């Protein structure tokens, strides 16, 4: 059986294109399982997984938990959004406490960049990064690329524009790494203050005019404006943002082609994305959510089988 090159999923940066393909092929199988009347397989029976969320999450946590249960794993949950502000012993001690209960895998979301990397040096369990600060959110990038592959047949050669707050977005960074590894072209678009100054060193295009970005791309991945992650004022107002960067039906109707619209959720309806687009025919937002479960099943299953 093929194996992943790593025993943790810390970031897309750390895995290979072959790893991604293997995850996709495995996810194809699990997606088929999810459409059966009995959606549960015994693959991870006797494996205990702890979902540790130091930052709020609804859908990622739900998606992981569902994936774990569909694989027959035993699941424990720990959530605490205020622990993250206290000093680090909280992280190690909390996780050590949970591990002394003989947990095999840890799915962790944390507000600190590199927190899962830090943890991987401290504990034996397999670690899945469910989002670390403004760094990476690897399973989101995998499910996004998987959804593009499903919709358009392949990721290689496709043009993907990531639109919004690139500076604070772990989704953007993981998406850039994943899409590039799979051979897609990537553009980032947003107000200049929300684009990292050195982003072109990652080999992406930069555009500040949303119309031009839409005209260029095959797929537009619209990011949530992360007001909660901005420690400093980066742009004047949400009103101005939605006027100049919000995606609506009118903008899309001016294009001479059909593009695919994605959003990692949760959507600020009327800010970065209007309802007429979010719920419209171009949108694959709900497919992303559905694929999320299959992708996470694949990741957990493959990591558990790494020797």
């Amino acid at each position, binding site marked *: 059986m093929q194996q992943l090159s790593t025993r943790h999923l810390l970031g897309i940066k750390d895995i290979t294109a072959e790893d991604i393909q293997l995850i996709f092929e495995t996810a194809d199988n699990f997606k088929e399982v999810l459409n059966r009347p009995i959606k549960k397989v015994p693959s991870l029976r006797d494996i205990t997984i702890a979902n540790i969320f130091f930052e709020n999450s609804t859908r990622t946590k739900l998606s992981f938990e569902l994936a774990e249960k569909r694989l027959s794993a035993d699941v424990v949950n720990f959530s605490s959004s205020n622990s993250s502000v206290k*000093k680090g012993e909280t992280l190690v001690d909390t996780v050590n406490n949970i591990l002394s209960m003989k947990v095999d895998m840890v799915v962790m979301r944390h507000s600190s960049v590199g927190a899962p990397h830090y943890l991987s040096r401290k504990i034996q369990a397999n670690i899945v990064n469910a989002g670390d600060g403004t760094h990476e959110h690897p399973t989101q990038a995998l499910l996004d690329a998987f959804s593009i592959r499903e919709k358009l047949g392949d990721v290689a050669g496709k043009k993907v524009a990531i639109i919004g707050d690139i500076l604070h977005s772990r989704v953007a960074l993981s998406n850039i790494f994943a899409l590039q590894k799979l051979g897609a072209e990537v553009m980032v678009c947003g107000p200049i203050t929300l684009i990292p100054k050195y982003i072109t060193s990652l080999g992406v295009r930069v555009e500040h005019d949303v119309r031009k970005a839409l005209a260029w791309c095959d797929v537009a991945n619209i990011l949530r404006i992360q007001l909660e992650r901005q420690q400093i004022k980066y742009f004047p107002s949400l009103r101005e943002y939605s006027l100049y960067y919000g995606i609506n039906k009118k903008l899309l109707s001016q294009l001479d082609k059909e593009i695919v619209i994605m959003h990692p959720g949760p959507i600020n309806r009327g800010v970065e994305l209007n309802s007429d687009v979010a719920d419209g025919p171009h949108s694959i937002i709900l497919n992303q959510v559905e694929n999320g479960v299959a992708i996470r099943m694949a990741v957990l299953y493959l990591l558990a089988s790494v020797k």
Partner: protein
Amino acid sequence: MKIRLRDLRLIDKPNDFFDLLIEDGYIRYKGPSSKFPKLNCDRTYDLKGNFVSAGWVDMRALCGEPGYEHKETIASLTETAKKGGFTHVCVMPNTKPVINQKSDLQYFIKKSQDTGVILHPLAAATIDTKGEDLSEMLDLHAHGAIAFSDGLHPVHNADRLLKILQYLSKFDGLLINHSHDPLLNLFGMMHEGEISTRLGLKGMPSLAEEVAIMRDLELLRYAGGKMHFTCISTARSVSLIKEAKKEGLNVTCDVAAYHLLLTDHDLMSFDTNYKVNPPLRTESDVKALIKGLKDGVIDAIVSNHQPVNVEGKDLEFDLADFGMINLQTVFSQLVALEKQVSLELLLKKISEEPRKILGLPIVNLLEGEMADLTIFDPTAIWRYDQNSNTSVSENSPFLGQELKGKVTGTVLGTKININ
């Protein structure tokens, strides 16, 4: 007390071996073994061709005591300095209490007496290094403040900086400023560039340092006086100071030894021991700093020794404190640079040049001088680990490594410290 040091040589005359006789803290004889005075020495050290130079001077180290003894004490700092070959260490004022008054100065001076290292406390330029009210600089100067500095913090308020420079100029006092714009660095974790972009870490742009140096140079031009920029880290900072020197402004600068070797690439694994301020920059900055050393733009090299206890370092990256302990490893870092810069020049940057900047006596290793010297072996390999580290803290990325270039000992007056 008569001490004989056998078989030493100077870095610029490697074929010329000599002995030293040190009597009651003074050099009484320097010359060939064959002509050594016929007398009984209390102790003889056979140094087997080790090199000797004027005692080394570190212009920038942080001590924990008083206030943060769990990071470093005066005893551990002086021990670590000796192990690193330093006989003089300038201590930043960022203790608790801050070095604000003459009694604070006395604490350091008294407690380091007879340790074999002279600690030079830097007096805070503003009360509690808050950048607001001026400290009593005249009084502090009169009671032994060798220079003034807010240490870890820049004097950010332009008006205060102007007044400090003016005030100090009246007695030729020196301001040591770690210039950077705190707002441009706000929440920054590492150098802003490709690596920070890849890691999703908030950057500290080179601009933050350069904008502050530009402004500070203009204030210096207006106020007169003299200023020393400490821990410059970018290529542009080197060229700004080069221009200022050319123009005749009374300005000097230093660089942290590790900034000559390490880059932001070292942060890829999120090792918090590489989290320092100013941050590790890029390869091209390192090249420019090395060139600046050779050209004489950069006058001195410092340890920028900043002890952090394990609870402050072994953390998620953004929560960890800035800083690296370095007093014990400076020499090995200089040896690692030997292919690019001659060791002779590098050693000047930790002995003669800082002595000039601080107004300390120049040591020529002549008969009649007080003994103030460092003995070292640039080819010896040693292991830097928990056993050999003498700092209370362990925040060094070099810990656990074999390092080339070892300090054999120091002599300061009657204090002989030879391993």
